[in-house]
């Protein structure tokens, strides 16, 4: 997969801000997200991490600033941009039908011919260890199985970028591991990963790059190795120290 020549990345954010009724929740975010790498968004509660992800994914329109896919001089049609990204939420929202039908539903949305859907959907389920559960109602699967189903659903879209918002925060360690393995698969297939997490261990395991937010501001962007060795800013240092103490 991911064999198309072009990626919709990079994504450039310029002066992005978001406010509700005059209260600024995000402000002055300037950021460039490159193809391929795994970017982990860190920050204390209420820093605006989820908000940032939703703005990047296009679920929320920023109240300030602009957002550009594809880099300078390469305007991309909205439809292409929409089609080639996916998002996995903290609590997966699955349709009230079988696991298989949940995948087939997405294949329908992206316009895959009807007779190919079954095969492609089964492959995706199999890839994330869900083949046995294909016929089960999605809503009665365990939390970990549901999250893997959400990942399988994202997989068939063949996204250039996958956003994940705290995907493991309500899962046990085994299920968390399965999700992390899945993220590896996406990355190995060439997808850009943009993910928020509270779990610093997970951040260390997955991150190529860290984006650190605090109180709606972008405080620090650096490579993972540099960030975890010694953050440049006092806020990030305090965050790491605080988290480690917990």
């Amino acid at each position, binding site marked *: 997969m991911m064999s198309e020549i072009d990626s919709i990345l990079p994504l450039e954010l310029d002066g992005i801000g978001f406010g509700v009724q005059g209260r600024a929740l995000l402000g002055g975010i300037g950021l460039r997200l490159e193809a391929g790498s795994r970017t982990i968004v860190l920050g204390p509660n209420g820093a605006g991490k989820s908000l940032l992800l939703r703005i990047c994914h296009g679920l929320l329109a920023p109240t300030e600033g602009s957002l550009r896919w594809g880099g300078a001089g390469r305007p991309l049609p909205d439809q292409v941009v929409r089609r080639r990204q996916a998002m996995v939420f903290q609590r997966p*929202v699955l349709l*009230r*039908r*079988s696991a298989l039908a949940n995948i087939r539903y997405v294949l329908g*949305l992206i316009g895959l011919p009807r007779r190919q859907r079954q095969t492609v959907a089964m492959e995706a389920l199999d890839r994330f260890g869900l083949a046995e559960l294909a016929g089960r109602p999605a809503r009665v699967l365990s939390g970990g199985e549901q999250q893997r189903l959400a990942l399988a659903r994202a997989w068939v879209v063949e996204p250039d970028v996958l956003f994940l918002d705290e995907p493991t925060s309500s899962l046990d360690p085994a299920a968390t591991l399965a999700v992390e393995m899945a993220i590896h698969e996406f990355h190995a297939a060439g997808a850009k990963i943009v993910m928020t997490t509270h779990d610093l261990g997970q951040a260390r395991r997955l991150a190529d790059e860290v984006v650190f937010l605090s109180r709606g501001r972008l405080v620090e962007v650096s490579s993972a190795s540099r960030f975890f060795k010694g953050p440049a800013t006092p806020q990030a240092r305090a965050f790491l120290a605080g988290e480690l103490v917990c």
Partner: protein
Amino acid sequence: MLDLSAALSTAAALVIGLDPQMLAIVRLSLLVSGSAVLLAALIGLPLGAALALAAFPGRGVLVVMINACMGLPPVVVGLAIYLLLSRAGPLGQFGLLFTPSAMVVAQTILVLPIVAALSRQVVADLWGEYGEQLRSLGASRPGVVATLLWDGRFSLLTAILAGFGRACAEVGAVMIVGGNISGVTRTMTTAIALETSKGDLPLALGLGIILIGLVIAVNAAVFLVGQAARRRMG
């Protein structure tokens, strides 16, 4: 209490005897109310979903109006339809007055607000849960409506049953636009009204018991089907 036991035995005799006249009345009642509910569902479900999802000026007013119309008095609806279908009215040339079709139209109007208002609520709640995910998946508007209606099918079934209950129980509208003509437009409820006015209270009550039994049977069937489906689909 003599009356009640007489009513029960009358009901039992009617059911056991399979009185053909009564069967025709039951058949017509189910046909008229069933058709009305079907039509109301075909219009009301998409309408309710559209009201839940679309934002347009005056939506709030429309929602309040439709909610209020759940309490439309059947007699008023019957009268309005009568004036429309009367030979002296604008639709008189179709000759629909005093036919089952006229009854279907009247009951559709009675049931539509119930189906639309309740499905609006169901779809709005589901949209709150599904909205981000469906937008993330890039579902189109019509696609979203279809998805939410399908995923809300168990709750929507209850809305439709509520409409069916109203259609089956009302007498005011079908009496006026149907005329309670023996063998043509006589339903369970108009027959009950007629027998009451003839003072044959056991027969009226007996018919009432059968009507309640039918409504219970329909609801039980839907409940069982829903349960089985829910167990399969979660």
